[in-house]
């Protein structure tokens, strides 16, 4: 993930997370308080409904009691109770009761749907607002039995003859002599009860209140349907809790399996449970609306934050991108590239510092170029000087040979032809002069050979190094001398180079090995070669006098010797020559050794 995305997301995260948390908390507390409001509302609705129910029943009880106490009511009832039905007074009393007292109290809707005067002895209906009821017996009915002594309400029950659910309020009719003359019974219009229960007490459309009896049957019609009263049972969590005799609130699925918040209240005086429920969907609609608002705000905020953080990230990363491009250009050598901005922030500072760095780098690079130029010039000068020096050395050596040859020649003449003129001391001196001249001649020859090496051209060809080394050894030794030398050439890979020059290398190295191991009773010389990644390395190992490694730097110098001439003859040009040849081939030389333990000389040629 690149820096821009990281910054964008970081800022977005930092801004959105608190907003989401705050939104969630707002939602949660909102839900809690709305829930509490709903619960309070349901509980108070239950209280209100139960008191309305009580008021309705008590109101009807009062009405029937008031009717029972009317003097004419008492008088006519007494007449019915005491006279023969055949007696005209009986019919008069009955008609008067029905016409003046019972029927006027019947309303088309609400209140009593039927009021009857029942005989206190037989339980027969003597007079009724409903003709059809006359002559019926209620002797076994509880409202009649109880109504003889006090005002009584028989709860909601199913009347088979009426083919409907009903509720009856009864009260005794007592004359002045405290005699029971009748039982007055009024059948209540249960639509009133259902209306009381279903009347909306608030703005909740789904709110419903209903009564349930001990056997779990609906007593009133719930607002969601008809034909439930004493026909259908309900066994919801709320109903079960209410029927267990407690009051409270619950969250559960209602009769139709709709999730509701329900308040239940047990009404011990009626053996019924009062339930008020509201659909959770409606109760929580406000919360849902709030949730929608909060989610919208959070989403909008999130969008704004993401956009803003994107722009912010761009203002940070754009100069950085320019810096990256500038650095890449400078890396390609365009040191005049400038990335600096006028911005006053850290990135502006960085860009300007970058520019300064590029400027300084440019200056440094310029001076480096100058230096290289100077080196080139010096090298040219040095090479010229070297060439002059070599030419000088060559000519000096060459010019020195003539006088030296004269010294040698004349000394030999002196010794051979004028021996008799010289005494013993003179002869010895002449011999020394002659030997010294010969030595110097040899030195000059070597020097010339060395000098020539620097100038002669190289003709490279593929060389069988094994054969070359063996041939050189054969040339350098006699059959006799070979008997005391254990010479062995290991598999040495072929190499590319000038035959005569590399032959000289082998001559110098093998002859050195023979020379420095001559003191050993049995000399061991090993020639070895092997390929490495970029070069072929050859070595010549002996078990001779060896050398002290601290003198290694001197080994390959001209006229450098680690042993005296008395020990091992030589003039110190051999290894210098080896180095020169190998270097001219592009290779390198080195050596390892230890005094008295032999030495190994290595040279390499490029592959």
């Amino acid at each position, binding site marked *: 993930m690149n820096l821009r995305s990281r910054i964008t997301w970081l800022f977005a995260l930092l801004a959105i997370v608190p907003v989401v948390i705050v939104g969630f908390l707002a939602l949660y507390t909102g839900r809690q308080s709305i829930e509490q409001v709903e619960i309070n509302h349901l509980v108070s609705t239950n209280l209100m409904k139960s008191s309305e129910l009580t008021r309705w029943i008590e109101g009807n009880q009062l009405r029937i009691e008031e009717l029972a106490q009317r003097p004419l009511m008492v008088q006519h009832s007494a007449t019915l109770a005491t006279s023969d039905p055949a007696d005209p007074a009986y019919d008069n009393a009955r008609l008067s009761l029905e016409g003046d007292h019972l029927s006027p109290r019947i309303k088309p809707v609400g209140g009593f749907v039927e009021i009857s005067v029942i005989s206190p002895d037989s339980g027969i209906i003597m007079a009724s607002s409903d003709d059809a009821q006359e002559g019926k017996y209620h002797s076994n009915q509880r409202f009649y039995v109880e109504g003889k002594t006090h005002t009584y309400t028989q709860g909601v029950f*199913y009347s*088979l003859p009426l083919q409907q*659910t009903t509720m009856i309020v009864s009260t005794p009719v007592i004359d002045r002599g405290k005699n029971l003359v009748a039982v007055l019974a009024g059948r209540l219009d249960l639509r009133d009860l259902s209306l009381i229960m279903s009347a909306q007490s608030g703005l909740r459309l789904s709110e419903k209140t209903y009564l349930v009896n001990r056997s779990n049957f609906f007593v009133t019609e719930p607002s969601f349907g008809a034909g439930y009263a004493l026909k259908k049972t309900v066994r919801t969590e709320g109903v079960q809790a209410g029927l267990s005799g407690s009051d409270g609130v619950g969250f559960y699925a209602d009769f139709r399996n709709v999730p509701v918040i329900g308040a239940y209240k047990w009404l011990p005086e009626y053996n019924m449970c009062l339930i008020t429920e509201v659909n959770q969907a409606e109760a929580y609609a406000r919360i849902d609306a709030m949730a929608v608002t909060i989610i919208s705000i959070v989403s909008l905020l999130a969008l704004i934050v993401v956009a803003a953080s994107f722009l912010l990230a761009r203002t940070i990363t754009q100069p950085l991108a320019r810096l990256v491009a500038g650095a890449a250009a400078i890396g390609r050598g365009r040191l005049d590239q400038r990335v600096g901005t006028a911005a006053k922030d850290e990135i502006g500072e960085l860009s300007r510092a970058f520019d300064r760095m590029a400027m300084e780098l440019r200056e440094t690079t310029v001076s480096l170029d100058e230096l290289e130029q100077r080196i080139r010039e010096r090298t040219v000068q040095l090479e010229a000087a070297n060439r002059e020096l070599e030419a000088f050395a060559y000519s000096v050596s060459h010019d020195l040979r003539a006088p030296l040859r004269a010294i040698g020649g004349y000394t030999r003449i002196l010794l051979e032809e004028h021996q008799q003129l010289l005494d013993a001391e003179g002869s010895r001196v002449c011999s020394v002069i002659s030997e010294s001249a010969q030595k110097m001649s040899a030195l000059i020859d070597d020097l010339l050979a060395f000098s020539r090496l620097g100038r002669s051209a190289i003709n490279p060809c593929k060389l069988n190094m094994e054969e070359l080394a063996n041939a050189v050894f054969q040339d350098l030794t006699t059959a006799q001398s070979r008997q005391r030398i254990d010479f062995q050439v290991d598999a040495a890979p072929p190499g590319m180079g000038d035959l005569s020059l590399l032959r000289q290398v082998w001559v110098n190295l093998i002859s050195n090995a023979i020379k420095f191991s001559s003191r050993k009773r049995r000399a061991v010389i090993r020639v070895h070669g092997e390929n490495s990644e970029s070069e072929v390395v050859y070595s010549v190992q002996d078990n001779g006098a060896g050398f002290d490694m601290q003198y290694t730097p001197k080994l390959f110098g001209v006229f450098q010797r680690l042993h005296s001439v008395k020990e091992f003859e030589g003039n110190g040009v051999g290894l210098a020559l080896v180095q020169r040849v190998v270097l001219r081939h592009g290779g390198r030389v080195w050596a390892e050794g230890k005094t008295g333990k032999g030495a190994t000389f290595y040279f390499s040629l490029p592959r």
Partner: protein
Amino acid sequence: MKFIRRLLQFLLLPAVLLSCQCQLKAGQPPDEVALQLKGVHQAEFAGFYIARERGYYSRENIRVTFLEGEKDLAIVQRVVYGPADFGVIAPESILTARSQGQPVTAIAAICRQSPVVYVAMSDSGIRRPRDFLGKTVATLDASGSQQDLQLQFYIMMKRLGLDISKMKLIAWDPNFATFYDGEAAVTSCYSSGSLISMRQKGLNLNLIWPSDYGAYFYSDMVVTSDRLIAENPGLAARFLRATLRGWQDAIEDYQQAVPMILKYARDRDPQLQAAMMEAQLPLVHTGEDHIGWMKAEDWLAMYKLLQDYGLLAKPFDVNRSYTMQFLNEIYGSESK
């Protein structure tokens, strides 16, 4: 010795295990119980079918056999002397049997109202028993299996002081041909049975309920013998508990009961059985009291009616005709 002991152990162990198993099994077989119904299989006995189909009897470790009612069948005799252990029977039969010294006791009232009703065409002007005077009434029990129709008629008329000699009583016709062709102005019928088919014909009827005129009776009672109550009260309680549960289910959702009724019913018309079931509901559940509940005053009222009518051989303590022992045990444990 050691070998013999080991051999004995080897042989005895399975025997001991087997005997344990046998003992366990011996405690487990369900009680075989026969229930004598008072009529042919129909919706009237739905609660019993549900209790069996839903395994309420099995859960009480009871295997129940239903014995269909037949003509002139002395249900009381069959309950007291076998082969039935329990019976479904009308309360007047219990009271008359009891007055004759038969040791039979009601343990619950399935129908606490009687389905007996007298019907007349609504245009006949017959609205109450008094209007029966001078009319032809089809209510006489010719077969002996509809005693309640006749009995409640007589009791109602006696209670009202109406002279039945002023009416023409003819035999009750189960097909109501005499009623339909106008020969009989009034006929008796059952609200949970024949009334349904009359209403299905679209007839407008006036209903005269005997319970409105002093003939208040329970209907289907669950009875058993005094011997069973004394010897195995646990069985009676278990049987009744399962039965009441079946009835509770039946009244809570009678539609569900219909397929189970159809497994037994002679008449396999699902609509008829459903309608019968619906008509049965208010008899079982009145909105007051528990299913099966009985009241002393109701028993006393029924006793008095029969006594007044002279149907009881000799007076006796009506409270011995029924027992609340099992209802109290069942609902007492549930009482709030």
